[in-house]
């Protein structure tokens, strides 16, 4: 039974430099990295390789001490050249110098009909060892799913409404069969439906429209309509005791390829976008690519901030840093470390604002205006003052400020009662953007989730 949900609340951040639907001829990155910090909750990585080891694409690199069966695998074949550590010897990056020709670890391969005959246990084992299990995220908490769980349903959002987001339909245009295969594999894990959530507006790629025996839901509205958490809330809100899984479209395709071709295929199309990119477009590379090749001779200027992911939820990385496991977007925006004379009083038309307070005139520009935003915080942190704003960008039946205050007060009962199980950071990212008082809303949400997990 399909659902159609029209959302009104939210806010589109229309940034300049959207990726054109073409693929660059850029040289492929030489190094790739596995970053334990990409995986939420992976506090104790156990390394399986040392500097100097050679690995194949799909060779396990590390696992979580508290989830021993879930392997994090190398995206490419090559040599482990560095294990970068931070404070207290925390593992930050395992860098791999890639071979020219990728060699793969081999797993069992199937076709669409034969995969239907394998058991959940066999499929699970291949996914765990083949490095694709981390694509399965469980709600509540937004962490890597536990292999022993059976979810009530599986949700896949096929469109991304966040700023500069890559188009999943385009990024997976050659992976139609793999996507269908991935769905077949995922079907083994739940008695409930698999929800494939699509955008009402705009054409739906055949990658998604041709998938059979799933529940297709349609959504419309501004960001965060594409967030899977928002979609779940409107299809079947997560109540206490519920457990559902979410997978990104790329995750589904990579799971599919593991069964279709029997290899850990981390190749992907990555969008390189943002106002500071000369030629914003897609690049063919692998998960965890070093961004140096992607921005080489491709920047308008050098004082920029590179972000793995989108500007709302992404992570700031160095110019020779690495894309995250879950990210298929490199956003490049101007660094905003300049003071501005009477910046709090000046009329501003070029800096996007959700608000219309005195002098903020971006609302006059209309919806099609593309903005060039910097990383400046445009103000300093303060206590909560303004009310009723977060609610306007969160299309959920949740009182966000009350939830955040419950988290700050470490009030477990209220966190639960106010809906902590229904949200993860990305769902409240817009609240952080529009916040007059500049709170780290997403960090607070994660703190709350960790309290619930450990409490």
């Amino acid at each position, binding site marked *: 039974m399909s659902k159609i949900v029209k959302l009104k609340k939210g806010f589109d951040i229309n940034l300049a430099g959207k990726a054109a639907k073409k693929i660059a001829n850029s040289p492929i990155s030489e190094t790739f990295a596995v970053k334990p910090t990409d995986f939420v909750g992976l506090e104790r990585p156990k390394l399986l390789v040392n500097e100097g080891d050679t690995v194949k694409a799909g060779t396990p690199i590390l696992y979580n001490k508290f989830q021993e069966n879930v392997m994090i695998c190398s995206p490419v074949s090559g040599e482990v050249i560095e294990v970068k550590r931070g404070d207290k010897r925390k593992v930050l990056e395992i860098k791999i110098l890639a071979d020219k020709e990728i060699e793969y670890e081999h797993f069992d391969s199937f076709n669409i009909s034969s995969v239907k005959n394998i058991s959940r246990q066999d499929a699970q084992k291949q996914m765990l060892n083949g490095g694709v299990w981390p694509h399965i995220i469980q709600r509540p908490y937004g962490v890597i799913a536990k292999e022993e769980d059976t979810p009530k349903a599986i949700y896949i959002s096929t469109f991304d409404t966040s700023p500069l987001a890559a188009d999943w339909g385009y990024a997976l245009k050659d992976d139609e069969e793999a996507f269908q295969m991935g769905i077949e594999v995922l079907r083994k894990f739940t008695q409930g439906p698999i929800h494939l959530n699509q955008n009402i507006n705009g054409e739906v790629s055949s990658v998604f429209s041709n998938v059979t025996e799933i529940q297709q839901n349609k959504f419309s509205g501004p960001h965060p309509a594409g967030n899977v958490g928002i979609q779940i809330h409107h299809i079947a809100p997560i*109540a206490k005791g*519920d457990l559902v899984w979410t997978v990104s479209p790329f995750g589904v395709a990579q799971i599919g390829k593991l069964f279709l071709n029997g290899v850990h295929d981390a190749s992907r199309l990555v969008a390189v976008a943002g106002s500071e990119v000369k030629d914003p477009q897609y690049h063919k590379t692998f998960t965890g690519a070093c961004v140096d090749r992607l921005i080489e001779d491709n920047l308008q200027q050098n004082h920029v901030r590179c972000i793995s992911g989108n500007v709302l939820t992404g992570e700031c990385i160095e110019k020779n840093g690495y894309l995250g496991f879950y990210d298929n977007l490199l956003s490049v925006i101007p660094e905003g470390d300049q003071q501005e004379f009477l910046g*709090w009083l000046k009329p501003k038309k070029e800096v996007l604002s959700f608000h219309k307070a005195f002098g903020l005139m971006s609302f006059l520009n209309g919806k099609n205006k593309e903005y060039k935003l910097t*990383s400046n*915080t445009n103000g300093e942190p*303060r206590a909560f003052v303004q009310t*009723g704003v977060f609610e306007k960008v969160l299309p959920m039946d949740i009182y966000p400020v009350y939830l955040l205050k419950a988290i700050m007060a470490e009030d477990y009962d209220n966190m639960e009662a106010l809906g902590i199980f229904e949200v993860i950071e990305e769902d409240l990212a817009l609240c952080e953007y529009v916040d007059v008082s500049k709170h780290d*809303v997403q960090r607070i949400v994660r703190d709350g989730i960790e309290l619930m997990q450990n409490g």
Partner: protein
Amino acid sequence: MKFLENILEKQKPLFQKGGKFEKFYYLFEAGETFLFSPAHTAGKKGVQVRDAIDLKRMMMTVVIAMIPCLIWGIFNVGYQHQIATGSLTEGGFAAFFNWDNFLFGARWVLPIVLVSYAAGGAVEATVAVIRKHPINEGFLVTGMLIPLIVPPTIPLWQVALATVFGVLIGKEVFGGTGMNILNVAMTARAFLYFAYPSQISGEVWTQLADKTPIDAYSGATALAVAYDSSISGTSVQQGLSEVNNALAAPFGGEFFSFQNMLIGGIPGSIGETSTLMALLGALILIGTGVGSWKIIFSVFAGAFAMGTIFNLAGANEFMNVPAEYHLVMGGLAFGAVFMATDPVSAAQTDVGKWIYGALIGMLTVLIRVVNPAYPEGIMLAVLFMNVFAPLIDYYVVESNKKRRLARATV
């Protein structure tokens, strides 16, 4: 501007950790961020771009929304003075917007504004230094609100004292802007009202500046007139219509005609007299989204509803005051627009805002009509509902929790 930036940059080490004036870092920071919005950039994680708004700008918007009331108030102080001393016998806009009125008004109003900002600023700065937190922008608004809700004859030392009390007891003891329970400006006014009642009630609404008023001038506010006539048992409307203050043709009709009260050529607290200017402020607040239209609208609606209920009851003369008169008399409009909408002390949920606003309006009229001690109700109504706002929100949020609980499977 590079020049200014360099000066600040040079002084900075003195105020930073280990510097000579380390203690006063937040004073320096306040000055610096006032001149230059800081070069802070987003952290490594979390949003990488932020909205253009900040608290300073938001507060500034409220100050700008108050400017019509302030300017009108300045003219009106002069205007009332002229009427009281008999030098003005014709009303109307030409007589109102008059250079002499402005100069006279400014002579009495600006010192109040200055003292309020100075006293409040000093408290903010001291607390910031002691408690080691940034200086709160909230005072931009409070410093302007307080002068607008006191009579033009108020002694300056009382302004200073009330401001200190309001900021310190109303706000800082709770942890500063955003943490307070009561509206700071209303707290300051309540302090004056109970500590120095003779300077804030009675014949204090006209700045005579040592001149004696002419015999035909009463100087009473509309609410006081209404109250008096209800005591003597005559019709309030008749009582109001008998006041003319020797002024022909104010902004239409009699001195206390609906129209004249709406426009605001009447005695009262500096900023409260003109309902029209308060509505202009409301337009700015609503247009910019800084003030909640739900609260403003529901205060007016609540007051009108309560006035209508009293009309139907009609047990005494005050109850018979036409409901729409309540909207333009006294400080209801100013309070609805600038006091009730204070986001920190108001209800925070959408449903809560409707209830909160409506109750303020109803309580204001209830206090005006039924309570014999206080001719004006908006101050107490706002403070009372400030205290109840969290309770209103509690029940609204509780219903949200119940919906969620109903879905739980374990």
